[in-house]
């Protein structure tokens, strides 16, 4: 049990952080749209893991814990932006025309279309097609049923296809 080896966090968490920081930042970027916010979200997720290490019942699931925290943290950021909608401090997403970090216009177009999807579908598509999680893993990460995952994925892909067709 982790509770009896609380000291192990100083060895395990930094290693986990080094190995997964970039991947988690990319995941958060796809959800929130900009790197600075994504880095904050990921930093908070690992800080929570560190602080809650003694309560973590299965260290092998630490990465899952972090991923869930990143998704929840990203969702929380988007909710706060909802309050400050059109606030000038909300950064432009990486797929906006103002950014040139993604060279390929087609990729920017797809990412914009993903961002237009309802939040749930966006999260499911990113976790399935970027993080390569199974339906069961996505269900647990998002707190929804596997049926909802399949439904959101199916409808998300269909909506995405229609949007991309229209923009051709």
């Amino acid at each position, binding site marked *: 049990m982790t509770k009896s080896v609380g000291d192990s966090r100083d060895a395990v968490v930094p290693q986990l952080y080094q190995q997964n920081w970039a991947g988690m930042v990319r995941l958060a970027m796809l959800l929130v749209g900009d790197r600075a916010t994504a880095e904050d979200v990921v*930093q908070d997720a690992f800080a929570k893991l560190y602080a809650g290490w003694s309560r973590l019942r299965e260290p092998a699931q630490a990465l899952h814990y972090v991923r869930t925290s990143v998704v929840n943290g990203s969702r929380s950021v988007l909710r706060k932006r909802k309050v400050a909608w059109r606030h000038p401090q909300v950064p432009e997403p990486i797929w906006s025309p103002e950014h040139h970090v993604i060279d390929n216009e087609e990729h920017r177009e797809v990412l914009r279309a993903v961002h237009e999807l309802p939040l749930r579908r966006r999260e499911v598509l990113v976790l399935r097609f*970027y993080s390569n999680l199974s339906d069961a893993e996505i269900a647990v990460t998002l707190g929804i049923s596997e049926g909802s995952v399949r439904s959101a994925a199916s409808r998300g892909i269909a909506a995405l296809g229609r949007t991309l067709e229209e923009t051709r």
Partner: protein
Amino acid sequence: MSRQDTETRLRAALSSIDPLVRDSEAPGLVTTARAPRPRARFALIAAAAIAAVIAVLVPYLLIDRSDNSQPAEPSGPPFFVSFGDVYDSATGNQISAIDLGRMRILVAGPDGHTFYYLIEGGCRTPSKLARIVLDNQGRVASTKIVMYRIFDVPSAAVSPAGTRLAVSVSSWEPRDDGACASGGPTELRVLNLQTMQTRTWPATYNTTPYYLVWLADNRTLFYDGADDSGSRSLWTLDTTGPTGNPTEIAERVTSAQITLPDLGTGHLYNPARAADGDQIVASFSTGERREFYRAIAIVTIDPATGEVTAVDERIARHGAERVVFDASGEVALVFDEHHNRLGRYVDGEVSWFKPSNEGGPPTGAIW
């Protein structure tokens, strides 16, 4: 554009951000979370106050006063449904099809004819929970909306007597741009199907209840609850006790993660009341694939202690990937996604039904 083309373009676009963040750019690990700003703290307090008011008002508003009629008394053999197809539970033969449209079947009543389903909403249209009763030919005999203004139902269960419906519900709230519906925190609701009154255990308990199971006493719920971090535990709850106090959720019995000697550490899926009424049966999976299949087992759990009392690993040799138990806990529907087939699992043996008409794996099956 074909679905496959869309998926290919999506994968390529999502992967295009990989070069933007490199491992070597990781800053040092900060082990303390950023403190919320004063304004954010004020917003949190305000949100908590609003949530408390809503928690008091919503159960009152959700009481259905328009129609207390009970569903028509069904007869004939029990059914199971897979997407919109209705099957005879004993033979696996399809006997009818119902047009589900934007509906998704969630759970069946103990009679095998009453099903509860989600009418999935869209932008500005919250989802609804409804009941459908099928006659002995598998045709729709009656429908009724039993819960309004919800976003999603991660789990649902009907009590053994068919008198209570337990659902974990995420509520509707505006999306970040104010345009579409999105899911908020998940709360537990128990609807008395005779009085149509709802009791709510709010999301402030910090667990999302998955896999609700009623015990034989018709009042105690067993469930697998995940906290904000996704960390999961098993819980029991006396739904007839007073509400409003977090200590009334009964003891946390154990971690939902279980380690089996041959399969390793994994989670429980689709638990159900076992045949004896006092135990819980569930499928178990590590989530890892072994060749074409995920390694699974069936475990029996004592809900009073959370201890695993029996493990059946015989199911693994049949190549089944998913398991759903019927109301008796004796018979399981099993899915073989590799061969796209559905079968019954009884006492270590599987009898396979014919492949689904859907052309895809029949994973939507509900007893």
